[in-house]
């Protein structure tokens, strides 16, 4: 099973995605390349909502703050996977993009020759989290390489 040389991992750090991370690391051979795609969903573009009362300075402070918060979360996430990948002697690289998750994944899958795309399962109903999901149907229609969806870990 652990014979893959180049894996594209789509993960944004949720519980389901963390299961996919562990699986990806397990399935790679020592020295393989692990490319980590982090999609910052478009929903964050709408996070100033319809604010109109604030002045430009307050809005800029907010935007910078939100960007730094998202950036900090992404850094922590990448650092964790990078550490785990290093332990198995994998070549880790990461890519952060803003957009719709499935479109970004399809684009990223075309940038190199990957053996497999690995991602987590959607969050089961009742578990808290942001509502931004990978549309698997359009993804499976467009992907040209095998896709592995890792089951959500049992609670």
């Amino acid at each position, binding site marked *: 099973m652990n014979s893959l040389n180049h894996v594209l991992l789509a993960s944004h750090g949720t519980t389901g995605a963390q299961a996919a991370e562990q699986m990806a690391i397990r399935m790679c051979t020592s020295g393989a390349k692990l490319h980590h795609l982090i999609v910052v969903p478009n*929903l964050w573009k709408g996070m*100033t*909502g*319809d*604010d*109109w009362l604030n002045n430009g300075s307050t809005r800029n402070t907010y935007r910078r703050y939100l960007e730094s918060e998202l950036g900090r979360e992404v850094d922590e996430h990448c650092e964790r996977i990078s550490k785990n990948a290093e332990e198995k002697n994998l070549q880790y690289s990461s890519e952060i993009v803003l957009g719709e998750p499935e479109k970004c994944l399809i684009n990223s899958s075309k940038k190199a020759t990957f053996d497999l795309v690995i991602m987590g399962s959607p969050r089961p109903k009742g578990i808290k989290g*942001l509502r931004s999901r990978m549309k698997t149907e359009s993804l499976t229609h467009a992907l040209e390489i095998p896709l592995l969806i890792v089951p959500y870990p049992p609670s």
Partner: protein
Amino acid sequence: MVYTKKSPALFIIGLIMLAIWFLASNGMMEGYIEHLAAGKKYKYLGELTTLALYFGGISALVGAWQWFVTPKKGDWDYYSSTIAGAMFILLIAMLVRWFVAPEVAWVSIQMGKVGDTGKYIHKLLGLNYIVLGIVAGIIVVNWFKVPDWAENGVRLSRLGLKTGVILLGTLYSAAELANLGGLSIIMIGFFVLGSVGMVLWMGSLMKIPNSMAGVLSAGMGVCGVSATVAAAPVVQAKSVEIAYTIGTILLWGVGSMFVFPVVGQLLDMSYVQFGAWAGTGILNSAQVAGAALAYQPDGIETLKVAEIFNITRVLVLPIIVLWLAMWYVKREEHADKVNVGHIMIQKFPVFVLGFILLFALSTTGVFAPAKHYKGKYFGNTVDTGFKEKNLLKEEQIVSLQAEIDKIQRADRKDAVLRLIENRKIMSDTDDAVIRGVINAKILSKDLNHVLKKAHKAVRHQAKMIKAFRKWITWLFAFGLVGLGMQITFSSMKQAGGAPAMIGGVVGLTKAILSLIVVIWLVSETV
């Protein structure tokens, strides 16, 4: 970077506006306009033959330049990049105001009145050009996406709303501002502090993090998304907490914009009462303006009241942000120190100074001669120049006498009796009271119309003030269509978890309590 997109879009927008002007001014739309007017006078013919020409001409000229000339980097490029988006919003506002809203009204009238409410469905739901304009904006951003060439201009909608509020400053008398200001300080003071306190208390009960309680209390308590944007960095809210809060507030705000006018109609609230209720009870400030204009699309009395409440809220915002910052520092070891001066200066809403300036200027009589405020036409009689045709007719007096017992309040009854006696309104006070009778819709529709005519006969408006009222209406219509384009379903979908629950309880409590207080304490006029 060059911001202006090379696109035919602005040119096409210009051509559409010019086509509307051409068809309307050459009578080629007569049949359609007659249909839209539904037997009444079509109100917007003047706008069709002027605004469509002016803005169509500008759009076509600038659009042709943007399409064929390669822009260079610089300030002009940046400003030029906003024109296409601004005209895109304006075109939507025009189409909705001139054609879509009258069409919706026509369909609604064909459907007949709703149950025993005596109202058509479009009146009941407030489906006028303002609400439909916001809905059009929401549809554009969520189904079609705002085009690249329009993105920079869409942000100008905020400027439109702020300019509208600044111009509103010209429409208040000192007495109105003092009365409304006092009322709003009491109401907003009580409900802001009450809801901020309630969120913090519920947050501690539900053991949510301090950062989430802080950002949620600002959003729920003060002015919705704007307060969330201002408070989030100060209380170091996590990204997911911001998403939950903004989702909850947007969902509530958009819902309130539709529900509040219906409740207001069902309870026959006066413009002042509705403005005060919307200004206090609706969480998000953008939807306060939307609901006020939804309730009274052809006048701005409700907006005048609601915006005073909005201004009070935004003036309270720096104080609440400061308070939350101190509250957060006390509870979190890693919190940044509070810089009082920095927060107060950075969060101060500068546009409110513009509002105050225009109000001050208007009190000097720059925009309208003082006689318009003093009521030149109140004291005079036919002998001193009052037109006889404006006096009450004999049959109108008989009808008024027949219905006068419907009026319960003594001051109202006395004012109407004085109107009957003199056949015209004789004082500013009586005029204010009679406006209350009109707004409360106590008398039959025909007699309400008689009272309105009696009011118009004595209350004259300066040309410049009339023009300001029109500009304000357009600026708000423009701004709210643009703000609609910034309400995404993906943001609203984030409403959930503890913030949605706390928000639901606090939002509903605030809406119900403020409704009771308004009906109980706020009179029908100011």
